[in-house]
């Protein structure tokens, strides 16, 4: 941390900005305690991100504390189950380009998952005969979980900063629920 007078900052502003960019906190004392701190944009974003994480983790913990072991049937969940029913009713060539209908076993698997998930996604069919669950957290990260009939599920995450990760995980309810909680936690 560097403490610098306002006058020094004014005459060497580039040097101080460079130092802040490199990670230094520049504290500028002012009259009546109206001090300011110069930090880099990266540090500012990181501080904001931590604030979001803390707020969200608190909200989730509260939600858990207040809920029983059975997850309540929220409106969102109810809408998701209705949408899944619509997906189940899609017929051959439903996308106008040869997409096939969805198997009963896939629909059943996704229904079980929706019933168990503590945080509800948005649900979409794909022309690949998979069902895509989408989550967006308070940090503005985005996660897609693509479910098919296999024992695995594909996860795709794009963070607010544009960093992407793709991986394949076990497609069981416990593993997927844990990944969802990790995404929000």
């Amino acid at each position, binding site marked *: 941390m560097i403490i610098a007078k306002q006058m020094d900052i004014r005459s060497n502003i580039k040097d101080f900005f460079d130092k802040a960019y490199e990670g230094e906190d520049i504290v500028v004392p002012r009259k009546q305690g109206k001090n300011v701190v110069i930090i880099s944009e990266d540090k500012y974003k990181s501080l904001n991100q931590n604030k979001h994480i803390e707020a969200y983790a608190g909200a989730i913990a509260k939600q858990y504390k207040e809920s029983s072991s059975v997850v309540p049937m929220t409106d969102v969940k109810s809408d998701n189950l209705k*949408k899944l029913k*619509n*997906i189940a009713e*899609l017929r051959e060539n*439903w*996308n*106008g*380009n*040869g*997409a096939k209908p969805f198997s009963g076993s896939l629909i059943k698997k996704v229904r079980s998952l929706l019933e168990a998930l503590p945080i509800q996604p*948005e649900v*979409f*069919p*794909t*022309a*690949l005969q*998979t069902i*895509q669950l*989408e989550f967006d957290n308070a940090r503005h990260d*985005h996660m*897609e979980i693509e479910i098919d009939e296999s024992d695995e599920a*594909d996860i*795709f995450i*794009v963070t607010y900063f544009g960093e*992407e990760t*793709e991986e394949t995980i076990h497609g069981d309810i416990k593993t997927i629920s844990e990944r969802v909680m990790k995404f929000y936690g």
Partner: protein
Amino acid sequence: MDNIFRIDEKLYRAVYPPEVMDMFWKRDGSVSSAAFADRNGLSVDRGDYRPESEVIEYMSERFTGHIVSLYVKNCNDVGAVVKYSPSKSNVYHSEIHGSATNKLLSKTQRRHLAIKAKIVC
């Protein structure tokens, strides 16, 4: 029309299925990347610099539902390939492919196009 696409040409995608029109719409009003997954290539109508009302009218003759638009640049930005593929019933038919050798768009490409897509009607 030929197989040359300039970056400012618009592409129009009909979002099926018409019987459940909000199937691919997210709660925030945007379209899901799931609408851009297709092993057969993503069917679009090229704009060919026609007025948007003309494009909508032409597409509406063949289907009922929502239409989203993209620019060729949006595809180029993520390495997706636009191919002119006219059919007997649709002289504007084109396809967006993941690459020169793979028709399926990657997850990154789908997400990018979903973000860039503008809802036309």
